[in-house]
């Protein structure tokens, strides 16, 4: 009931703003002819409230994602996305006191009010809320809730160990929501020789797991595709000093090539450890990752090539003998992207995930365990074309795994009708042979989605 009321309010707000925008647009076009290019500041009201209001930006969005046919396993059978969202963001850069001003401070806040009709809840989430200062000319410190990204992959991550929200990704929310925020401190030191980022994450944040309520998946406790009846118990690492995660990156440019090395100690973001099989209790095992990446122009053919490698050290199962905990592994990624005339762009990636101690894995596997390959291969292909002076973007992203024999395609059309309105339509389609593979397990969740966004 509450969510209905709220979504009604949000829709009313959208309509109100859109109507006021129409009149604004008309008057602006008339005005601009007359007054020419008077700086915008002079047009603004000097009212302090107006100034604050001017510094608030964001969007309102409504989204609907009906399922193609799909299974009838999840909470709602006909759709997996139906929601209205209001996002507001504001930045504040204090000029006083003088000692603080000399640190070039910036406070940033971004929050989402989500009326989720799928889950029938109204949720408020702080996506970002941080302070950023430069105590020294060559140092930045960013403290608070923030989105963290590094590495070279396109929708594939090796050394980017920060939390992801795959549920959002698979149901057709904006790409922004693939990244989940971390409560962290990021300390950066810059020099010509090498720059360093150290990220300290005292409060563990896992990936948003697929639990069956919205997306059906392969439940290895049940040994089949499951939906809302899936009942795992997730145990997160306790908030303790020794559970603080630390991620570091050292990077520098060598000519036109960007190089980086990475190290991480913390936990898997996915619950790849089983604490108690009969109770269906899972946990996030300890993990260390060491890796490196390089990115730059591809010689002679043009375009951008990249390579990334990472060693995942499964600290609670280094021998690989414990079948209840994910083994250590190596991950390799090669990427290539280039543009062509008339706003065409293509990208390709080849990704290999190697399970280490594979013999131990095989020796300790039991009937009913998900079969795995020593080398899992994944190819991705992205093609993008812009039309109408870059206001219409058509894109197709596809994942294909020859070893898992499964695939996932994401076609999308995004039309920027004007500076404020954006209409996006797309689909998430999964294929495969075996219920337990990464993409095929989601086959019952194929959807089509439509999103309408008004930015201000």
């Amino acid at each position, binding site marked *: 009931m509450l969510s209905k009321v709220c979504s009604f309010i949000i829709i009313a707000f959208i309509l109100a703003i859109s109507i006021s925008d129409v009149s604004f647009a008309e008057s602006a076009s008339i005005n*601009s002819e007359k007054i020419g*290019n008077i700086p915008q500041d002079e047009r603004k009201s000097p009212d302090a409230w107006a100034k604050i209001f001017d510094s608030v930006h964001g969007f309102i969005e409504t989204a609907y994602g009906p399922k193609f046919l799909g299974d009838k396993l999840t909470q709602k059978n006909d759709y997996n996305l139906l929601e209205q969202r209001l996002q507001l963001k504001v930045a504040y*850069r204090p000029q006083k006191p003088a000692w603080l001003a000399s640190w070039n401070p910036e406070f940033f806040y971004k929050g989402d009010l989500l009326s989720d009709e799928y889950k029938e809840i109204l949720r408020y989430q702080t996506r970002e809320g941080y302070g950023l200062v430069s105590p020294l000319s060559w140092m930045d410190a960013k403290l608070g809730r923030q989105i963290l990204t590094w590495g070279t992959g396109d929708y594939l991550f090796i050394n980017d160990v920060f939390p992801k929200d795959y549920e959002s990704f698979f149901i057709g929310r904006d790409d922004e929501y693939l990244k989940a925020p971390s409560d962290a401190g990021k300390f950066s030191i810059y020099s010509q020789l090498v720059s360093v980022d150290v990220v300290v994450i005292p409060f563990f944040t896992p990936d948003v797991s697929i639990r069956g309520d919205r997306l059906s998946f392969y439940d290895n406790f049940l040994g089949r595709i499951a939906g809302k009846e899936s009942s795992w118990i997730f145990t997160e690492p306790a908030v303790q000093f020794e559970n603080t995660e630390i991620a570091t990156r050292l990077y520098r440019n060598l000519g036109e090539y960007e190089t980086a090395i990475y190290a991480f100690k913390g936990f898997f973001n996915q619950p790849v450890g089983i604490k108690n099989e009969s109770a269906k209790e899972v946990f996030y095992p300890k993990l260390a990752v060491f890796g490196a990446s390089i990115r730059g122009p591809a010689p002679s053919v043009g375009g951008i090539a990249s390579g990334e490698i990472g060693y995942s050290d499964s600290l609670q199962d280094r021998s690989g003998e414990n079948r209840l905990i994910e083994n250590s592994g190596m991950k390799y990624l090669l990427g290539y992207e280039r543009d062509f005339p008339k706003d065409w762009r293509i990208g390709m990636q080849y990704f290999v995930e190697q399970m280490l101690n594979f013999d131990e894995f095989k020796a300790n596997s039991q009937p009913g365990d998900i079969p795995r390959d020593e080398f899992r291969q994944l190819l991705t292909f992205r093609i993008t074309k812009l039309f109408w002076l870059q206001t219409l973007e058509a894109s197709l992203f596809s994942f294909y795994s020859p070893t898992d024999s499964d695939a996932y395609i994401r076609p999308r059309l995004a039309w920027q009708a004007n500076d404020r309105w*954006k209409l996006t339509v797309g689909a998430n389609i999964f294929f495969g042979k075996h219920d337990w593979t990464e993409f095929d397990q989601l086959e019952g969740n194929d959807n089509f989605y439509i999103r309408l966004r008004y930015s201000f």
Partner: protein
Amino acid sequence: MKKILAVSIIVFLLFVSGFWTKNVCAQDTQSGKTAMSDMLLAYYYPQTDAKSEISMRIVNRQGQVRERRLTMLRLNQTPGGDQSYYIYFHEPADVKGMSFLVLKHLGRDDDRWMYLPAIDLVKRIATSDKRTSFAGSDFTYEDVSGRALDEDAHELIGEEDLNIYHCLVVKSTPKRPDEAGFSYRKFWIDKATHLPLKVEHYNIKGKLYKVYETQDIQTLQDTPTITKATMKDLAGERYTEITMKEVSYNVGITSDIFQERLLRRPPRQWIGD
């Protein structure tokens, strides 16, 4: 003997005609080249560094307007040579905070990065095609950052007055027209300031398809500066109007700032809010 003579005459004629055609295709006159070189320096390289606040109005056939507001920082690494650019978008709302870092190199592809603040992503962008529209406008990346002098042959074809300005008219023909995507451009270059007042772009078939026009020139910090210009797409019946709201030269931009940090931490002392 007669045959030999005939053959040698034919060979000679072929040789001469080949030479002659080549000259027509790429007539590089010293005066043309000098005029163009002066123009490039005056237009793309004035002073050592610059900070500009730029507004763009993109008007389509139906008269619908899209607006962009951005701040651009520029630093010349060498006079008339490599340059570094930083571009920060203030408006529209959906791209606010997005920024670009461009290291322009003569003789090879530029290095270009884009930063998307919502996902904290620094993305390297392929730049093989410089004819891509800049921010959805009628200006291409090449229009914004310039073609290298040696990529075209420049011929001074006359002098003409545009309003109060005495102009040199220079025809620039790409040495590799297929790659360039047009057959030639005609520049009207003001003799006094060396700034381009008008540029006509002719497509591969030799038809005029795009016209650049300077609307306003102001002298800022003793530097003649184009503060308003339009690019018209004749076939699309569209145009983009670009206005420099604020231009300051020699604001103290140093080459060490053009790195990843600039994208993740925009330099507020120059770009403001």
